[in-house]
């Protein structure tokens, strides 16, 4: 039996599919010149060829003889649902054992970098691996104590600097206070990749917004952009944030939870050490703190998290944001 598949490296889709010739060399050549893709799905096809060019899981049953090759069709529907057309070639009507699937190469975008946003093409393979008993990986978490408070001239944010991977400390001095705008900073707890990516993304959006409006960014703008993004991913983007800044309307402090809910508070704590830090705030916070009192209180709260919570540790980072100038102390 003959079986053909067309070969292309489709970066935009992230698939690797290799071709080889069952029998006729010149038929493959014709396929490429037209830019069209032909598959002949045979009932049986050669075992074992080119197995190592396929990523694990994409062609799970490839290499085993199968009576029914419809899994190839399923993969085509999975990868290119809108562009798939099924045609029976007139020349092969006599053969009951093979069908041709005809697809226009022009409908797939080849050799372009991805357009942005998440890509889900390895999900099927990873699910297959999970079913076979291989556990999913753990991600770098920022165990963390992050705090913020409003004092008389502005906002003070504080964070510890430990990044954990399970029980191991992966980074003893990581930065958890992320830049959003010259007058807005954001502390992040949860999955490290998510906090970094989401704060970077909203920071870029704020920059573009500043170009468009010609004004300084407002904290409420950053808040809305963050909560919209996090809510749309229903909590799967696991980023818990303490957002603080000073804009034309005054100092603001907000907390944002991974599912997209927000709170506006005079003092706030997040992360695994949040209870330890909140205990310090509840005991000692008062309105109208001076700069030095505020810094001392924030440092005390973070230290409380560092000493009492196993997920927080190492050093204390503090960021003071005021109307006129911005100080970052590490």
């Amino acid at each position, binding site marked *: 039996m003959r079986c053909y598949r067309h070969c292309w*490296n489709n*970066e935009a889709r*992230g698939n*690797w599919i290799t071709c080889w010739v069952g029998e006729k060399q010149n038929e493959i050549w014709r396929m490429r010149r037209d830019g069209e893709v032909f598959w002949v799905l045979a009932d049986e096809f050669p075992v074992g060829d080119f197995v190592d060019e396929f*990523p*694990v899981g994409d062609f799970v049953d490839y290499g085993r003889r199968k009576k029914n090759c419809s899994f190839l069709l399923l993969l085509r529907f999975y990868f290119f649902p809108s562009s798939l057309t099924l045609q029976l070639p007139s020349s092969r009507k006599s053969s009951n054992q093979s069908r041709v699937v005809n697809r226009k190469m022009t409908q797939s975008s080849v050799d372009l*970098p*991805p357009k942005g*946003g*998440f*890509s*889900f*093409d*390895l*999900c*099927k*393979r*990873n699910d297959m*691996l999970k079913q076979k*008993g*291989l*556990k*999913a*990986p753990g*991600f*770098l978490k920022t165990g963390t104590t992050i705090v913020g408070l409003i004092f008389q001239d502005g906002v003070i944010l504080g964070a510890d600097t430990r*990044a954990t*991977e399970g029980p*191991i400390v*992966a*980074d003893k001095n*990581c930065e958890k206070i992320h830049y959003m705008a010259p007058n807005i900073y954001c502390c992040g707890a949860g*999955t*490290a*990749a*998510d906090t*970094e*990516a989401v704060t970077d993304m909203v920071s870029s959006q704020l920059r573009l917004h500043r170009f468009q409006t010609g004004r300084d960014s407002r904290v409420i703008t950053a808040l809305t952009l963050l909560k919209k993004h996090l809510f749309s991913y229903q909590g*799967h*983007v696991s980023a818990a944030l303490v957002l603080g800044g000073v804009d034309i309307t005054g100092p603001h402090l907000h907390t944002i939870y991974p599912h997209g809910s927000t709170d506006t508070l005079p003092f706030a704590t997040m992360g695994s050490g949040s209870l330890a830090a909140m205990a310090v705030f509840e005991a000692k916070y008062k309105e109208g703190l001076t700069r030095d009192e505020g810094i001392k209180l924030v440092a005390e709260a973070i230290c409380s998290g560092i000493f009492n919570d196993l997920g927080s540790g190492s050093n204390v980072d503090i960021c003071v944001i005021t109307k006129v100038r911005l100080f970052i102390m590490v």
Partner: protein
Amino acid sequence: MSIFEYNGSAVVAMVGRNCFAIASDRRLGVQLQTIATDFQRISKIHDRVFIGLSGLATDVQTLYQRLVFRHKLYQLREERDMKPETFASLVSAILYEKRFGPYLCQPVIAGLGEDDKPFICTMDSIGAKELAKDFVVSGTASESLYGACEAMFKPDMEAEELFETISQALLSSVDRDCLSGWGGHVYVVTPTEVKERILKGRMD
């Protein structure tokens, strides 16, 4: 068993004075069976940037091919090589794009930046960058590697001393890990040359 323990790996990178070293083990296994003892985990992106990938071997190879492709496109457009910081951001973006269905590997990136300043960083499988000034580790032997590197590392080592240190750290750590070992592959990179050396270790 975790997916990262399917093939077994150990990768470490260390910073010296105007140089860096990156080392990996050489075993490729399928759970407890060894199927190759010369597996290449560290790859060159260009003369001054190296990437070592630990984790699932198929993703190691696929990701390496993707990154070489992107770097070549960059070279065509910009007519120069990528800086290591830029390359690290590229890897992070590629990994985060697959946030909900990730590549099951953890990269260690090492390079010489502007003014021959060495740069190392590692990431988890979804691209959370972790920059370090001394050493970074990754793989099944990572816990032992953390301990060995903490004990053996000194700042500002020259190339030869750095090679000795990283080799000792790697070999002693993989000896404590069943899934990695079978020798080592060490690259020591200075502004003028790249020295690649194969270590002979316990073959068990």
